[in-house]
């Protein structure tokens, strides 16, 4: 289980570093693949573009997805994930700055599994990542194979 990768889709380098730091602080040792925009994320999942070496059947255990992304935004990425038979059951956690009601509604409508707003306070952020890791990496059960 600990070999399973986490896919982080985030364009802000500060946020990437802080997220990685928070994961590390919570002793989450899973590999983290970082993609910096929506297109790259979809390439990774499909094994295309720069990720032809990546076996598309090797799915991440969870996707941490920002909404505001260059090229293809987070909601569009989510739509693609849910539309693809291979990835449609993949747990996707929205990790964003936005607390806009419409973002929440759109995300859940498109089949997000969870929605977390990144707090300004770093201590709170670490706590949020701890709970997230505990839940999605330890507690949550996923089917071994897409149905």
């Amino acid at each position: 289980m600990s070999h399973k990768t986490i896919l982080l889709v985030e364009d802000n380098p500060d946020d990437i570093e802080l997220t990685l730091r928070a994961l590390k602080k919570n002793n989450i040792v899973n590999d983290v693949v970082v993609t910096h925009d929506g297109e790259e994320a979809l390439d990774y999942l499909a094994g295309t573009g720069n990720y032809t070496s990546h076996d598309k059947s090797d799915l991440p255990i969870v996707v941490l997805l920002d909404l505001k992304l260059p090229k293809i935004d987070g909601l569009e990425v989510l739509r693609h994930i849910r539309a693809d038979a291979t990835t449609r059951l993949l747990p996707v956690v929205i990790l964003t700055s936005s607390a806009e009601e419409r973002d929440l509604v759109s995300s859940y409508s498109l089949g997000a599994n969870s929605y977390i707003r990144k707090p300004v306070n770093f201590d709170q952020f670490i706590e949020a990542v701890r709970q997230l890791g505990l839940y999605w990496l330890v507690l949550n059960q996923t089917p071994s194979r897409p149905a």
Partner: protein
Amino acid sequence: MGNNAFIALISNVALLLAMVFIYDLVNARPVNLDSRWQQVLTGIGIGAIAMAVMLTPWVFEPGIIFDARSILLGISGLFFGVVPTVVAMVLTSALRFVQGGAATVMGISVITASGLIGMLWRGMLRRPLTSLTWGNLLGLGYTVHVVMLILTFTLPWQTAIRVLSHIALPVLTIYPLATVALGLFMVNRLKHEQAARAVTESEVQFRALSEQAAIGVTKTETTSGKYVFVNQRFANIVGYTREELLNTDFHALTDSDDLKEDLANVERLIRGETREYSMEKRYRRKDGSSVWVNLTVSPLWQKGESPQYLIGLVEDISERKKAEDELQALNKQLDERVRRRTAELEAANKELEAFSYSVSHDLRAPLRSIDGFSQAFLEDFGAGIPEEGRHDLERVRKATQRMGELIDDMLRLSRVTRDEMTIETVDLSALASDVGAALTRDNPGREIGFVVQPGLTARGDRALLRIVLVNLLDNAWKFTSHNAHATITFGATMDPDHGTAFFVRDDGVGFDPRYATKLFVAFQRLHSQEQFAGTGIGLATVHRAIRRHGGETWAVGEPDKGATFYFTVPASLEPKEENI
């Protein structure tokens, strides 16, 4: 002799009736006489007829003659009144006097009695003459002639008995009937006169009305459409003289765009599908300009025929039309302006939304970095940092977090203004109890008495009203935090200026009333951050939410004596949209 009397009397009566008919034919003057002169003339006429009748009497014996003068004089008294009858009485009396003989006194007495009885009858009559019935007239006939027979006793007794035995039966048989005949003739004549006068009067009225009318009046021939009468007003409306109009027809005058509809309407009138029609149409005036009128047309009905003439009432409505057109143009302009404004407002709203979205995303991200890396710095190099440096970095983090709160509150405030409202009946009491319960649950360890007046409702947006109560109760909670015990009340009161006002009251630190107006302004605070935490957004949010309902907010308080925050939610259905 008896038969002789019958025949003679009948022929005399026939003569009377014939003469009255002839008089009536020759003299068409009305029965109702206005001037004394006319009355005298009529009296002479009646007297003349009576005298003609008297010249062909039934002679009982020389000096004793019978004729129909009594009938005529009785009827005259009844129908013509005093003056004509007296004149006739004088004339006939004179003639009788000249005729002389044994029955002279009797003859003059009968003349006098007949006229008087007729006049008496007239005086006693409580109804108009036209309502006289034959029974009534028969009564008059018998009265007059019974009196006449009684007057026979002015003759010597023997003669009187003889005369009576001969004439009583014929007189009482023929004369009353003749009275009825003559009377009914008069009644009919009166009725005709009245009808004729009514027609004349209505004609005069029609002329007067149409001449003085403020609206145009026309009479047109149905088939040709030719004008047979127009009043001056109509001539003024269309700018022709009345003479010119009588040589033309309405087809020529009507604007070609309206003629078809007008003719169709006339068709419907002729077919009897409608009793009248009304339409707005244009006439071409003589000077070529056009005038808007409201035309109402009804047929001049003759019994059982299609109408030969049409009466038109023409009202000049060009002023009204002009005003209507102007109003329409104005409305259109207004619509256009409203549409433009709405579009502008929508654009502004969209922009604001984009702005808030970007604030929530982009402004918070650097704050997270500042806070996150400050913390990382402390963790990574904490050992090497002097105590003062750690303190400084903690200050940086605190300020960052506060900035995050400010941004969040600002977004919340702007959302209160932006979010669409759904108006429904909201149970404010239940809402307040909910919010109070949540506060107690989230902040245990305080002794707060929550008092909620039951059954308070308002028409408004549930989400916004919840925000109002959350902020007010939160505030009350916060500003009583220095009390050991505190009471927070939600209720309603009648305010003289605002009607029903809801309030949240606390017995906390209160505020200086000099600053009451600053309370509802965003980011204005009356207490230091050390005393009470907060961003100064809560009451501004309340104010905006209530303003969107068209309501008001105000506060009453004194230092250390608690504060009461009031708000109203007017019952009006449409909330005001406040510009941001």
